[in-house]
């Protein structure tokens, strides 16, 4: 049955900016405005503004919140002080990934989780299951799905930090550290915008410096207009999901449904850094520990085409130099920064070494490629 696509509070803006709307994770989202390459290069050089209202927000609070989240997620929540954020994963007992997410500690015992739109229902159900199975007293924890109330935009690019302070007011104006530009990578802070409290995190999905602004859905269109107006000095322009995808692929950031599924683990995806096996028990720990000890059969690698070819695409076979099938492409595109085909693939661990020559099978023909170190793109 076809599901009705949801529209974000920025829908009218996208249409008036000439955005080309496509379905994504149950939402009608802009894939591009001026063009994917143009927007991609603008983010690398100046700045781009993305609608990320489709993403889900869960608030988890109460005296047992930290204990619960540490049991639910792979990264160590103990590392988070109020104002800190971390990348983390939610895993099944098998180690398969339910979702990848950002967890922020807003204040003591109050956490905000930013999850993928396409996984929101699965995440919520898994979280409820974990709550029911655990020994936490219901009065000690509160889980709220704020996805329908909150929206977010990402403002990304090397120029953004130079003008962002003109956009938001500090809640504590006497404190120098309460400017947006003082936020370090992964930190989050509360700011004021037209007497509304907004949360701003120094993170993103592009590999460029930048921020994500979380606010009520009613405020988001006003923030969007304000950012485009103030960001004019830094050549800010709207950017769509197409550029978001090419930017993250160049950085080798995983995308749920591609590098991450319930059939792949963080170890196989190369995300072991975000799995703390020493923090105590958590969902998926036994399986992930076993993988760490015994090794993995396949690994997610980055590759670059070495000659002229059509862009690699998800599900294309990966071949060894001898033509033997050794894996499968999970993400692939034409890199706007490198003007070359790039991608990520799961391949047999034995062949998964940077510098290794491989081939990608594109419509029945094989084209040479090379496994490269992550990230594929580095600032010159």
């Amino acid at each position, binding site marked *: 049955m076809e599901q009705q696509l949801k529209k974000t509070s920025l829908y009218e803006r996208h249409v008036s900016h000439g955005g080309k709307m496509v379905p994504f994770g149950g939402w009608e989202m802009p894939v*591009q405005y001026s063009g994917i390459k143009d927007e991609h290069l603008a983010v690398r050089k100046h700045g781009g503004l993305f609608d990320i209202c489709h993403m889900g927000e869960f608030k988890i609070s109460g005296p047992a919140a930290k204990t619960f989240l540490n049991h639910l997620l792979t990264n160590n929540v103990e590392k988070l002080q109020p104002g800190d954020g971390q990348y983390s994963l939610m895993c099944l007992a098998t180690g398969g990934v339910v979702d990848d997410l950002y967890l922020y500690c807003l204040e003591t015992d109050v956490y905000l989780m930013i999850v993928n739109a396409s996984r929101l229902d699965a995440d919520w159900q898994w979280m409820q299951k974990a709550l029911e199975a655990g020994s936490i007293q219901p009065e000690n924890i509160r889980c709220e799905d704020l996805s329908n109330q909150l929206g977010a935009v990402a403002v990304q690019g090397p120029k953004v930090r130079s003008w962002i302070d003109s956009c938001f007011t500090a809640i504590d104006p006497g404190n120098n550290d309460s400017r947006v530009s003082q936020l370090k990578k992964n930190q989050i802070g509360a700011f004021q915008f037209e007497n509304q409290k907004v949360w701003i995190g120094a993170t993103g999905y592009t590999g460029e410096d930048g921020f994500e602004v979380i606010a009520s859905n009613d405020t988001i269109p006003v923030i969007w207009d304000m950012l485009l107006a103030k960001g004019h000095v830094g050549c800010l322009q709207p950017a769509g999901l*197409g550029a978001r995808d090419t930017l993250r692929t160049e950085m080798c950031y995983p995308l749920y449904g591609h590098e991450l599924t319930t059939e792949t683990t963080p170890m196989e995806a190369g995300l072991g850094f975000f799995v703390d096996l020493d923090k105590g028990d958590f969902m998926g720990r036994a399986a992930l520990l076993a993988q760490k000890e015994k090794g993995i059969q396949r690994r997610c690698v980055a590759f670059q085409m070495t000659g002229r070819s059509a*862009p690699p695409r998800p599900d294309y076979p990966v071949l060894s130099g001898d033509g033997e099938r050794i894996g499968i492409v999970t993400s692939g595109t*034409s890199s706007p920064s490198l003007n070359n085909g790039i991608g990520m693939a799961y391949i047999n661990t034995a062949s998964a070494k940077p510098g290794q020559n491989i081939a990608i099978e594109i*419509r029945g023909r094989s084209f040479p490629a090379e496994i490269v170190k992550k990230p594929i793109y580095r600032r010159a």
Partner: protein
Amino acid sequence: MSSQIPDTLKYAKTHEWVKVDGDTATVGITDHAQAELTELVFVELPAVGRALQAGEACAVVESVKTASDIYSPVSGEVIEVNESLADEPGAVNNDPYNEGWFFKVRMSDSSTPDGLLCAEDYKALIGE
């Protein structure tokens, strides 16, 4: 923004254009198609000498985002392809009816191909 639809050409429902000159048909994709496909980064053309059936997928165009099939509007043998698209796939976006042509076919039946649309009907098809 309405796209260009020259009166002198015939159109397939799958958004290719055909210019017939005797038994030779030159094929490309329409202005509407290139706009929908967005900026092209790669064009894969059929081999010269390949026999094509009308409606057969015979070329592939790739934007940054995705790959799309292009269908031959006519039956016959491929006699020439636009080699310059290998270096300049953007010609399809910039000049879809001239520099951006795809391939030429010697038609097996040189009577006007069936099932192709005139400019006016194609315009109605794409809702302009």
